[in-house]
């Protein structure tokens, strides 16, 4: 069945690829489950009752639409006009909930009885646990042991919401290892279990499904720009880990004359440890899709590094690889230090504590203002709030103070 979905440019629904990127590189056991999911996704999107239920939850429960905010004091500091799409004001404090409410509703329609998820910063885990509490599902979340330590408040939040959190001790003990473990759970319990993937990544149909659920960000933002700015922005800026907030906001502007700018995590710098596969990786296959990856010459996956747990991933969603390949989007990178400085600026100038992930997008505004000029209008996806990052930020600021 074909869906009432606007398929993205370059996407082939038969192969599940964006150009050469994406596809379905999974164990045979999961292929029929992915077929089942694809059918259920298309059928749900064709069902007005499902769409109505989802829209109502997004409005009344998630709190959409989220505001578009002209950050005037930040604009002055940056040297260009900066507008923030406030996904940090969505329920649970990030864009992640747009995706989980939709997927868990889909799981209910499919008759699944158990939900699993992977999480990095814990935002997707919290959003999944939230949707599961709302819709009455048992929820198990896989989280790298290193992230359990870095993002302790989110672990507690998930537990309070009724979820079980499994600390994953294998590999680099971060997001990629959490995803490995979630895939192992899914391959074992595939008949009963719905795997709620947290980014626009993984095997087909997840990149398309998550994109579709996050596209609401771009649709709203485009209308709000026309209404509040009176025109479209010059550039849309968003951070990219797996890349779901970026693909969601980009989706609203793909066919417009608007620059699309993804900001990867440059960590300690692109020559050192980082999490920027689109800037400094090469094409490979991980977690079910062909895309840019951090890897060794021998095809082993390299460990990523970012101060932000949500960007600490060696891969990226396949549509971003395609947008890079076709040059429709441009991908830059911000270091840990730049993100930290942007965090502080936004806190002091606007009274907003952004997530460290989103701080990377804010950090990119300074070089963009220089490039595009003082009249440029930058639309920045403020994908999440920073409360979860306080420990990390305070520790990093201590280190910085000590160094001076």
């Amino acid at each position, binding site marked *: 069945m074909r869906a009432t979905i606007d398929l993205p440019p370059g996407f082939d629904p038969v192969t599940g690829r964006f150009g050469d990127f994406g596809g379905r590189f999974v164990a045979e056991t999961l292929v029929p489950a992915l077929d089942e999911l694809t059918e259920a996704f298309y059928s749900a999107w064709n069902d007005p009752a499902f769409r109505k239920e989802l829209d109502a939850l997004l409005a009344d429960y998630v709190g959409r639409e989220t505001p578009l905010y002209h950050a005037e004091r930040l604009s002055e500091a940056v040297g260009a006009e900066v507008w923030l799409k406030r996904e940090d004001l969505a329920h649970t404090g990030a864009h992640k909930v747009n995706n989980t409410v939709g997927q868990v509703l889909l799981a209910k329609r499919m008759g699944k009885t158990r939900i699993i998820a992977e999480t990095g910063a814990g935002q997707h885990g919290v959003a999944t646990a939230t949707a599961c509490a709302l819709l009455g599902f048992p929820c198990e979340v896989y989280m790298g042991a290193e992230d359990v330590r870095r993002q302790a408040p989110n672990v507690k939040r998930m537990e309070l919401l009724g979820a079980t959190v499994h600390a994953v001790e294998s590999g680099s003990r971060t997001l990629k290892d959490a995803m*490995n473990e979630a895939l192992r759970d899914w391959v074992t319990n595939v008949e009963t279990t719905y795997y709620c993937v947290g980014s626009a990544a993984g095997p087909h149909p997840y990149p398309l499904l998550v994109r579709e659920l996050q596209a609401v960000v771009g649709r709203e933002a485009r209308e709000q720009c026309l209404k509040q700015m009176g025109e479209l922005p010059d550039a849309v800026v968003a951070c990219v880990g797996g890349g779901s907030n970026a693909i969601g906001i980009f989706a609203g502007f793909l066919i417009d004359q608007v620059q699309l700018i993804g900001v990867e995590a440059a960590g300690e710098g692109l020559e050192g440890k980082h999490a920027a596969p689109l800037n400094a990786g090469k094409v490979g296959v991980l977690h079910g899709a062909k895309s840019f990856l951090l890897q060794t010459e021998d095809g082993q996956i390299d460990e990523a590094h970012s101060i932000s747990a949500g960007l600490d991933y060696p891969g990226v969603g396949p549509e971003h690889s395609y947008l890079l390949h076709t040059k429709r989007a441009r991908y830059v990178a911000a270091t840990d230090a730049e993100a930290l400085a942007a965090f502080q600026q936004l806190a002091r100038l606007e009274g907003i504590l952004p997530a460290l992930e989103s701080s990377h997008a804010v950090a990119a505004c300074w070089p963009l203002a220089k490039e595009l000029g003082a009249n440029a209008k930058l639309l920045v996806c403020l994908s999440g709030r920073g409360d979860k990052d306080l420990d990390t930020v305070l520790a990093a600021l201590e280190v910085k103070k000590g160094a001076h």
Partner: protein
Amino acid sequence: MGRISDAMVKAGGEDRAALIIYLCAGDPSLEVTPALIRAAAEGGADIVEIGMPFSDPTADGPAIQKASERALKGGATMAGLLKAVAEVRASGCDVPLLLFGYYNPILAMGEETLCERAAEAGIDGLLVVDLPMEEAGPLRAAASAKGLDWVPLVAPTSGTERAEEIATTATGFVYYVSMTGVTGSKATDLQSAASTAASLQNETHKPVAVGFGIREASDAAVVAAKASGVVVGSAVVRTIEREGANAPAAVREQVAALAVGCKR
């Protein structure tokens, strides 16, 4: 016909299931890998699967995950693996060897280069866990061009129609996964897995081996009664982890015991 098909036919002719043993290359080290391959062959393995260690083995349980980690920590590379295989061949051991693993290390070397170098080293076929039928075309073609066999996976979730379609792509044998799960899990129902394998064999006239969850000779016997092959992986990997320097002798003994279970 290649060595893999020959081995399946030979075992059938002797009224037993072929015994297929998995080893992770580089565990405990690439220096020991040739001795382990020979030990498996001496114990009675008809085919040996050489695992290519990968950093993110999503279809494997803890035993093979840890073996891969040990191998990579010890510096195992694809080039080193192929060198170890060449050494096995140079020593006169002609047990059929199936290269087994994940797609990314193959992609990193280049599909055609990998197939060429694997064939040169003495590999007989490929099995790639995360390359289902729809994605396997280019590598299958590259393998075929170098005379390498292609062993696809069929899962309990595949369904009859898809299973038969997958089987048409097999040249050595079809690997039937006995359950939904990762390697090394406890078998759920080997009896019914063996029956499914047998009916797939009847429909497709391709030999079908059953793997996942087979630990002992008694498990092997249940499968061998109906299927053409029995695959044992994690149980052997655990022996290697436990035995250290004594691993080749212990593997020889374990494989010999499993071989008894494969007799009909």
